[in-house]
């Protein structure tokens, strides 16, 4: 309904200025896009055929630093896609272009749109908008420094991932020189549940231990990847990797709170992998 209103408004302005407008700009005007002027006119009003939902979104602008606020936006769910990311893009297009958030693939594989929706971390492109008239609260990933609105500083998270050396390390050359290092199906199956991680940081930022020790505790994501390389049969630095992680703070800040397993949008269980590392430390 809103888009047809825009189209009608565009046609009206188009007809009025058709005689005076040059041919090139006529082509531009006819395209029904929501420009600045049109955006001001779109005011979703609750009617019989609309399904309004309020989104409370965390806002903070570094250019005008003030107290961070929760701003309300009303969206007609009938005109919007099912996922939270669709709602965010609709708000940015039609209501408030200054809303800032990260997004890329819109299908749950890049991990850019990780944020806290209704108290739980998840990917905005995979989280369905809750039906019903309750408000949806969207805040950035918890206990991270906010760059702007829903964008947080992930530098510490990436550095921790780098610190576990997430690449294959060998002491000897491969058994058949020049060819790949063979790995049985069983050994490859050991990596299932770890290689799918997209480094969205939903798990690490849901862990209270990571909130209180962000720089010394590695966090579930980095530890999941540490276990991925420890469990890889092709990797020959297993003992060194275990020793590198075997630290009071790096590994043992985990108290099996298991918020990470609940938050993971890909269905992985970092808590289980951390328990695996702890078991290896006991026995190995």
């Amino acid at each position, binding site marked *: 309904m809103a888009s047809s209103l825009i189209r009608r408004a565009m046609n009206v302005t188009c007809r009025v200025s058709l005689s005076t407008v040059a041919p090139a700009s006529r082509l531009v005007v006819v395209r029904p896009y929501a420009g600045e002027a049109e955006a001001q006119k779109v005011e979703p009003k609750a009617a019989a055929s609309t399904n309004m939902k309020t989104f409370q979104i965390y806002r903070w602008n570094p250019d005008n630093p003030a107290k961070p606020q929760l701003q309300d936006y009303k969206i007609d769910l009938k005109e919007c896609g099912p996922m939270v990311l669709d709602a965010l893009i609709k708000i940015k297009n039609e209501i408030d272009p200054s809303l800032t958030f990260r997004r890329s693939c819109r299908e749950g594989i890049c991990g850019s749109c990780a944020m*806290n929706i209704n108290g739980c971390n998840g990917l905005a492109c995979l989280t369905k908008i809750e039906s019903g008239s309750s408000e949806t609260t969207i805040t950035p990933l918890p206990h991270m*420094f*906010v760059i702007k609105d829903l964008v947080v500083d992930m530098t510490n998270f990436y550095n*921790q991932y780098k610190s576990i050396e997430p690449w294959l390390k060998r002491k000897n050359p491969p058994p058949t020189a020049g060819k790949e290092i063979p790995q049985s199906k069983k050994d490859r199956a050991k990596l299932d549940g770890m290689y799918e991680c997209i480094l969205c940081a939903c798990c690490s930022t849901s862990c209270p231990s990571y909130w*209180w020790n962000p720089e010394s505790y590695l966090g579930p994501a980095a530890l999941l990847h540490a276990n991925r390389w420890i469990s890889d049969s092709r990797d020959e630095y297993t003992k060194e990797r275990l020793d590198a992680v075997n630290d009071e703070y790096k590994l043992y800040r985990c108290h099996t709170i298991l918020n990470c*397993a609940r938050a993971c949008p890909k269905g992985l269980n970092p808590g289980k992998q951390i328990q695996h590392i702890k078991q290896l430390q006991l026995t190995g």
Partner: protein
Amino acid sequence: MASSLALKRLVSSNILPSSLRVVRPIVTAPSTSRISSTNAMRDGNDVFDPLSPTMSPSQVVNTRDQLMKNPFFSSSRGMATLAKGNEGETGEQKNILRPLSPHLPIYKPQLNSTLSISNRISGAFLTTVLLFSYLLSLKMGSLCLTYSSFYQFFFYSAKLFLVSASVSALAMSYHTYYGIRHLLMDLLKVGVPKVK
């Protein structure tokens, strides 16, 4: 690291004038430069330890605003300090403090996290009860004889003893069950919760 934390706290309090704030990036750089980014400048108030109350992001920014309005210096001098801070660092970003996104107040409590924190709370409660009751039972006599108000208090609250005993029994049993579950999960992988 503790000394740098103490220094951060001192600098961010209203006691010191703002001219010393320019010194802050250089002083704290060795301890935090490796992992924290150049953009994330942290106030001493942002450091969370179990003893201090956690500050909401609005509180952090508010504290910074209050510091800006400190009667020690005029606003122009405050702005000049900010500009100097610009030059001293990379010269490309503004010297503003970023808020910390909300965590405890907004995160939805779940079964696993509630069980875990109850374990910690019951453990702390049992520790205090144990130590406090030991101390109390040792010193009860001399304490009551010296301070009559304490004697009155203990006389009238003697009935509460049964209640507090049952509460501690509850805490003890919960803590023990959780501890056994933890042991089983760690050693035998029994009862690890399935992922959704």
